[in-house]
């Protein structure tokens, strides 16, 4: 009898204890980011944005009376590493949601795992459409590449007046391949010509061979849908070969290292991104002010703004759901409508993507300058 009682009472007691503990326990949010390695600038910016949002939320009392605990893991910008650390975040740290990554390739690695464990994942700035196609638990708070590719093709044709363009694509990054595809489709449709297509792989440093072939093809612009390290080296080597026409790309270019590595070669290059710190709207300006106060005067870039927004969208969804239960939280994120963030109004559509305007930035006198906004 006593034995039976013990068996029935113990689980009840344990459950009660656990419930009591949960009430004071912080809400654990997992973040995976490229804090070191080749795309460290992305991970660092995005992480700072997310961190700022979490600190701000905690300072105002958190959500549902609970504080947030951000658990950040570094994937060293390496392939294969994200899968490992996301599994660790889910199974050992028991996070209720995942925030990450910037690079689409690494988000694509983590997404199937998050989907499998039914943990909502919000990517701040992966733009490849495939990311959210991985399952119903995967969201993003930025625009997608079909829009970005179309916008840049129109910008190249209508604003820069380019007719013959060379494409220089990174074959080892899903982001680059996807963006190149959408750019190509639109550019051909609106009467432009892709004269030559050249390829490289992530981590390459010598692009002279591809550029020499491009030079021989007599184009009047180069579209480089890659990341900043390569974009800077490509621009530098193109200028060395006296190719002085516009070179332009997508949001993968957005990092201070672009100018640091590329130097003077970056003058007159363009890229599309998610927001500009020059935007005079009060929301953006107060974010820039808070960010600069927290991180030694650093001006937040688009990755920081999206990192911030991704955490805020998550917090808003938890508030509306009233719980951190996985499926209820998922539904609340999916129902996000007109959420006012730093990068504009976020509405999650039926494909779990956000529709937002893009801005075009150029490099002038060694600094990023706003050129124009392109609305969807």
């Amino acid at each position: 009898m006593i034995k039976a009682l013990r068996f029935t009472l113990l689980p009840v007691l344990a459950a009660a204890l656990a419930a009591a503990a949960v009430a004071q326990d912080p809400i654990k949010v997992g973040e995976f980011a490229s804090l070191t390695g080749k795309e460290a600038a992305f991970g660092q910016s995005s992480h700072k944005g997310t961190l700022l949002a979490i600190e701000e939320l905690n300072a105002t009392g958190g959500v549902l009376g609970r504080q947030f605990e951000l658990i950040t893991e570094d994937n060293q910008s390496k392939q294969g590493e994200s899968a490992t650390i996301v599994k660790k975040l889910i199974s050992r740290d028991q996070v209720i949601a995942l925030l990450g990554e910037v690079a689409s390739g690494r988000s694509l690695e983590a997404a199937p795992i998050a989907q499998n464990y039914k943990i909502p994942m919000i990517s701040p700035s992966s733009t490849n459409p495939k990311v959210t196609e991985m399952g119903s638990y995967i969201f993003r708070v930025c625009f997608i590449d079909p829009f970005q590719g179309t916008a840049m093709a129109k910008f190249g044709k209508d604003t820069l007046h380019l007719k013959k363009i060379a494409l220089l694509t990174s074959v080892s990054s899903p982001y680059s391949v996807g963006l190149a595809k959408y750019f190509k489709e639109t550019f051909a449709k609106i009467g432009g010509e892709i004269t030559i297509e050249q390829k490289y792989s992530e981590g390459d440093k010598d692009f002279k061979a591809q550029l020499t072939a491009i030079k021989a093809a007599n184009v009047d612009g180069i579209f480089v849908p890659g990341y900043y390290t390569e974009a800077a080296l490509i621009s530098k080597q193109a200028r060395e070969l006296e190719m002085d026409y516009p070179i332009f790309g997508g949001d993968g270019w957005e990092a201070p290292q672009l100018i640091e590595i590329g130097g003077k070669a970056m003058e007159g290059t363009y890229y599309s991104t998610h927001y500009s710190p020059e935007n005079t709207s009060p929301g953006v300006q107060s974010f820039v002010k808070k960010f600069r106060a927290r991180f030694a005067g650093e001006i937040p870039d688009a990755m920081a703004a999206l990192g911030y927004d991704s955490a805020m969208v998550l917090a808003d969804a938890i508030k509306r759901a009233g719980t951190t239960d996985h499926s209820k939280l998922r539904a609340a994120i999916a129902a996000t409508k007109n959420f006012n963030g730093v990068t504009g109004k976020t509405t999650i559509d039926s494909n779990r993507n956000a529709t937002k305007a893009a801005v075009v930035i150029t490099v002038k006198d060694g600094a990023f300058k706003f050129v124009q906004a392109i609305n969807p």
Partner: protein
Amino acid sequence: MSEFLQQLLNGLSLGAIYALIALGYTMVYGVLRFINFAHSDVFMVGAFLGYYLGKLVPEHTIWGGLAVLAVSMIGCAILGMTIERLAYRPLRSAPTLNVLITAIGVSLLLEYTGQVFFGAAPRNFPSIFPVRNFSFGSVIVTSNQLIVIAVSVVLMIVLQLIVYRTKIGTAMRAVSLNPKAAALMGVNNDVVISFTFGLGSALAAAGGILYALNYPSIDPLMGVMPGLKAFVAAILGGIGNIPGAALGGLILGTVETFVSGSQWSTYKDAIAFAILIIIMLFRPAGLLGKFTVEKV
């Protein structure tokens, strides 16, 4: 035609760097009969030494650039000798496999210590030499490409003179031929091996700085790919053979550049390594190497 010449020039300047690194692999193999996998990381340390020293001298001056090059070469020579003294010498009488695995360990040690000390984010290498472009018709030569080719040629000639015209060079060749006999003839093997490591590491440092000048983004893992390519170049030319390493580097650099500039650019490494396999099938000892039967 001008595209061909431009590609050839691009290929030669890349190949010259591969050649410099390959020389280090080949010299150590010639003397000790093992592959020093840490060599590609000495290359990386060379570039980082150049990065820090480059901040001390004014940019765009020839003397500043040469000073950085020289000091960094000396620094890496000391590093190479230290690695040999601490990691390889205690294993001199152990089977080659043990030393090989130690070499991989030293390589990883340098890479990840580098990540701790230098940080993992890529850095921008300063332009320590003057930068100018020269146009010959439509072929454009950058001053960096000229510096790479000139420095490589000078260093290879100096190396050839050291190996064939000096006493220590004769001792190196003697140790390479038969270490026991050399020791019996009064050659101090330890000094010779130490010197070989120093020389090879200095060349790796020069290669690192020249590489960073042309591709000015450096990180602690930057040595991995060029190191692998240079290793292939050394085998291609005939491992243990100094002119062979230079030839192998130039061939590999040129082939890689021509493939990159064609529509098959995605396959550039595959094609480069396929050529290696074909050459190995027809000339197992490499282009300039002599095939010798291993005596048991």
